[in-house]
């Protein structure tokens, strides 16, 4: 500008200066924008980037398997393929050829292959971002859509054929935008039968329920260790030699469940619930000696292999989440506690006031009008008044302590989600409450608590917490966690437990309330329960809604299985014996047979109904039974006293009775001395005195016994 008039040149310089200032302002705006993005928002944006390319989101590790006690799978992951479509890539030019694929026509041709409607496919292809941000573990491909999860082999082949055809039609060397993503699908071989134990894994690999949920940390595997990078098309780059699932598989879980018994329990329960049109039901089968849960089934249930919609009712694990008033089954523990603490003894007579008894404003009824009953009869005839009397003898504190000792009022901590607490009220029970709680009203329990307490009676007084998960192993088979059966804790003396067991066998014998649960050839100890449900809208009980239950174990002498059956709101009849008793019998009988624990001669009523028994088997069984009866040491010679040492009262009575011998019982526990001794002649009055003593190693619970009750040593 040296050729210009200096004034104009000065003006020009000034104007250039103004423009340069504007440029500098623009540049400084850029610097601040760069600072804002790269320094201030660095962490958030870096995380966004990482989410895009990190393999963590893509390579879902193989989920661990859930096995039953015999290594039969209950939940297993099988590889499957997802069809991934990227509309952006499809609509773009395909390689060098500058050809485009018409997305709409592709949708039309894909739809019938994958079994979707054309509208559906087009709709999915329009929403170009999958919902998977909130569901980690799914193919999260930028701008691409998972058109369908879990294609079957036929579909994969058909889609591949379609792509090949389109390539030739369009003269393309390659076709980008349609690909398969490896994923895995959860398969539950036991279907509905074990749904409440396994739970379910959703479409996106998220654990929804059951052990899948509580053991998710173990099952899902670790997926952060892998250094690999995915590009926007979902291809794994820079990580050659790495295969999905390798080295990061989840841990395997072995349960105490026996899937055969589980199946028996689930099916018998479902059948009965459907027959009696019940609202719901639960069955728990345990091995009382270890506390292992062999089966836990509920009705209604669902198929975890399918996606279940909004209906939550079938998902509920009633056995642990449902609180109910147990009714008469709780009498087991009232009587057990009273016996164990010596508040009553086996031979004591309890006044039942002829079936009608008032305490405070409450009147208690019995179905049978009895006046005086032994504790065994109280159980066998399920006398509410008798139980109330025994409860009164224990007193409010005594009864509460007894029930707490059996594990009521606390969670069992079985590793399934949502266990109800079923706590006792905060206030001390008053007399009427003591009376009703003693026979199972006004107290809430869960089925799993009942199963745990029942196990203690069957296991000679040792309470074993329920054991569901036996061990957890890593993919190489190394032990991660081991859960052997614990020591348990003594809640009653073994001989009290034994005595109680014997009393409970009377329930299923002639004259008891639970004859429907009896199994030929096996002594079944059990108790029926029929409880009205509390009225939802008013005080008191609803006359039409009942909870029917049967709890018991067998064989009574050496229990193999303890079973709790709860049926909620049956519609036809409601008595626990009629509704729950048959379920108990069928599950017990089939399970014992499966375990080989039934006497060979046993031919169950159900078997007679279902299968015509083969005559030669029946004859052989009868022959064996008579041979056993004729064995020399089975029945002592008439006139001589039998050996009663080491037996419980009930066993002693049973052995003495056929000989016409009457026993004079002193103390409680097991027979430690008898007079006259075994083998010697019995006197003319045919009486034998037996001295009983508790077995060692156990301190009874100290309860404040009412002054009126006699406390034996």
């Amino acid at each position, binding site marked *: *500008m*040296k*050729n*210009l*008039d*200096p004034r*104009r*040149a000065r*003006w*020009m*310089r*000034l*104007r*250039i*200066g103004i*423009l*340069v200032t504007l*440029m500098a302002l*623009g*540049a400084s*705006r*850029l*610097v601040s*924008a*760069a*600072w804002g*993005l*790269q*320094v201030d*928002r*660095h962490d*958030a*944006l*870096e995380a*966004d*980037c*990482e989410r*895009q*390319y990190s393999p963590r989101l893509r390579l879902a590790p193989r989920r661990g398997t859930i096995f039953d006690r015999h290594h039969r799978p209950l939940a297993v992951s099988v590889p499957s393929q997802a069809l991934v479509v990227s509309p952006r890539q499809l609509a773009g030019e395909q*390689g*060098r050829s500058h050809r485009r694929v018409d997305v709409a026509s592709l949708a039309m041709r894909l739809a019938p292959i994958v079994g979707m409607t054309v509208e559906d496919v087009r709709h999915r292809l329009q929403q*170009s*971002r999958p919902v998977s941000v909130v569901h980690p573990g799914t193919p999260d491909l*930028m*701008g691409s859509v998972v058109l369908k999860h879990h294609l079957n082999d036929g579909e994969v082949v058909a889609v591949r054929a379609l792509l090949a055809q389109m390539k030739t039609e369009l003269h393309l060397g390659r076709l980008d935008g349609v690909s398969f993503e490896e994923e895995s699908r959860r398969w539950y071989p036991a279907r509905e039968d074990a749904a409440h134990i396994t739970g379910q894994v959703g479409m996106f690999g998220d654990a929804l329920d059951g052990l899948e949920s509580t053991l998710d940390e173990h099952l899902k595997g670790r997926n952060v260790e892998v250094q690999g*990078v*995915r*590009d*926007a*098309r979902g291809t794994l*780059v820079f990580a050659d030699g790495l295969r999905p699932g390798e080295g990061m598989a989840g841990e395997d879980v072995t349960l105490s469940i026996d899937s055969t018994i589980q199946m028996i329990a689930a099916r018998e329960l479902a059948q009965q619930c459907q027959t009696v049109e019940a609202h719901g039901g639960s069955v728990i089968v345990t091995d009382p000696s270890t506390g292992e849960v062999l089966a836990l089934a509920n009705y209604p249930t669902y198929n975890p292999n399918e996606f279940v919609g909004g209906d939550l009712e079938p998902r509920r694990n009633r056995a642990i989440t449902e609180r109910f008033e147990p009714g008469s089954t709780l009498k087991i523990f009232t009587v057990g506690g009273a016996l164990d603490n010596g508040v009553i003894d086996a031979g004591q007579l309890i006044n039942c006031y002829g079936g009608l008894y008032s305490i405070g404003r409450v009147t208690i009824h019995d179905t049978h009008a009895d006046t005086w009953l032994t504790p065994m009869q109280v159980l066998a005839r399920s006398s509410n008044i008798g139980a109330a009397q025994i409860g009164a003898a224990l007193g409010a504190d005594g009864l509460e302590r007894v029930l707490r000792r059996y594990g009521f009022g606390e969670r069992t901590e079985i590793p399934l989600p949502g266990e109800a607490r079923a706590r006792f009220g905060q206030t001390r029970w008053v007399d009427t409450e003591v009376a009703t709680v003693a026979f199972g009203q006004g107290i809430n329990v869960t089925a799993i608590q009942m199963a745990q307490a029942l196990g203690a009676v069957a296991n000679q007084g040792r309470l074993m917490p329920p054991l569901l998960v036996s061990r957890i192993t890593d993919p190489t088979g190394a032990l991660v966690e081991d859960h052997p059966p614990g020591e348990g804790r003594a809640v009653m003396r073994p001989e009290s437990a034994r005595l109680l067991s014997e009393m409970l066998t009377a329930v299923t014998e002639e004259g008891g309330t639970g004859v429907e649960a009896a199994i030929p050839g096996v002594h079944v100890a059990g108790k029926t329960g029929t409880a009205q449900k509390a009225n939802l809208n008013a005080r008191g009980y609803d006359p039409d809604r009942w909870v029917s239950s049967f709890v018991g174990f067998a064989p009574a002498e050496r229990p193999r299985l303890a079973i709790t059956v709860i049926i909620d709101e049956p519609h036809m009849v409601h008595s626990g014996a009629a509704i729950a008793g048959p379920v108990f019998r069928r599950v017990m009988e089939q399970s014992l047979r499966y375990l080989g624990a039934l006497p060979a001669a046993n031919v169950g009523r159900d078997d007679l109904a279902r299968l015509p028994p083969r005559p030669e088997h029946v004859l052989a069984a009868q022959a064996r039974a008579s041979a056993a009866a004729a064995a020399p040491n089975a029945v002592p010679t008439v006139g001589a006293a039998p050996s009663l040492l080491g037996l419980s009262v009930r066993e002693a009575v049973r052995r003495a009775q056929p000989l016409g011998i009457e026993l004079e019982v002193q103390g409680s526990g097991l027979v430690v001395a008898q007079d006259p001794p075994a083998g010697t002649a019995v006197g003319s009055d045919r009486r034998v005195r037996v001295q009983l003593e508790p077995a060692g190693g156990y301190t009874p619970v100290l309860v404040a016994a009412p002054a009126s009750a006699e406390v034996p040593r």
Partner: protein
Amino acid sequence: MSATPTNARRDSMAPVGVAPYRAQPVEKNASLGRVDHALLGVTMLLVAFGIVMIYSASAVFAEHLHHNGQFFLVRQTMYAVMGFVGLTFFAVQDHRKLRSLTYPMLGVTVVLMLAVVLGAGHSGGGAARWIRLGPINVQPAEIAKLSLIVWLSHSLAKKNEKIRTFSVGFLPHLLMAGFLMLLCLKQPDFGSAVVLLLLTFTLLFVAGARTGYILGTFIAAMPLAVYLVLGTEYRRRRWEAFLDPARFRSTISYQLVESMMSFGSGGMTGVGLGDSHQKLFFLPEAHTDFISAILGEELGFVGVAGLLCAYAFMIWRGVRIAINAADDHGTYLAFGVTTLLTLQALINLGVAMGALPTKGLTLPFISYGGSSLIIDLAAIGILLSVSRSARAA
């Protein structure tokens, strides 16, 4: 503003009202070997750096598309060589000789632009902006920017004091720019049209056109601009996407959000040259308009600041050359070229960082693209030529 006192004194002694073209005839060999070496140096540095960045950003994409990871590297190197030929062509001759090339350049530009608009163009990125000439694709809009600068410099220098009038000094320039802008908009290439308009205003302002005319035109053009943005479906959506990128995350603002994520993940010092993750198809065509995002990711804030410093240095040299130019034609040329490069760089970076709505403008010397690299190097050639004339004078 750094005019040396000696220059200013010499200015004052120049005769008033002398036509510059006649007053300073071209002297042969007067200015050989006197180019601005610093400017040449920083240009070569930027081109070399650009080639490295293009290789880094495009290798995976090129491998996928052409089964040849060096595809874009080789091409850009080729363009760079061609660009330096162009640079030398302009740098070795006196810029005053360029005045005879003004109308041929403008004519070729208009013919190419018309060819593109009338359908001979080849589409790319949703718009027809390319025309295939032999082995290379030419983008006439890039040529138009340089042609407009050359023509404006010639015309403004010729009109001299009459620049202050409306009919002679202001309107013809606006009409010519408007015609070229219209051709750009037809392609459609909104970004280039904006650059053409800003170039015209800038040079008119520098030449001394009345500020009132410029502001008036600007205000009068506002409704038109609003109509152009909001009246066109894709431009309106781009505008909305600029205002709220998250809402159009997967569609229109996909590229923008990915670009911002790239910058962000770079942090202060970057993830390291070549280690970008975003170039793995997350950021589409990362080697062209959004190469700054890869640069920001791999080299971090330090890298971006370094690039801005390089541009700032270039602008400083350009402004210095403009002010020291022997005549006003040289000043207009130099400042026009400087403004062109500045606008391109500012708008490109602003778009990539989400500070401006999306425009398809390249980053000078760094982005992949034959037309823009060759034109930008030719522009630097003109600048160097002016720098020689300044020293010669």
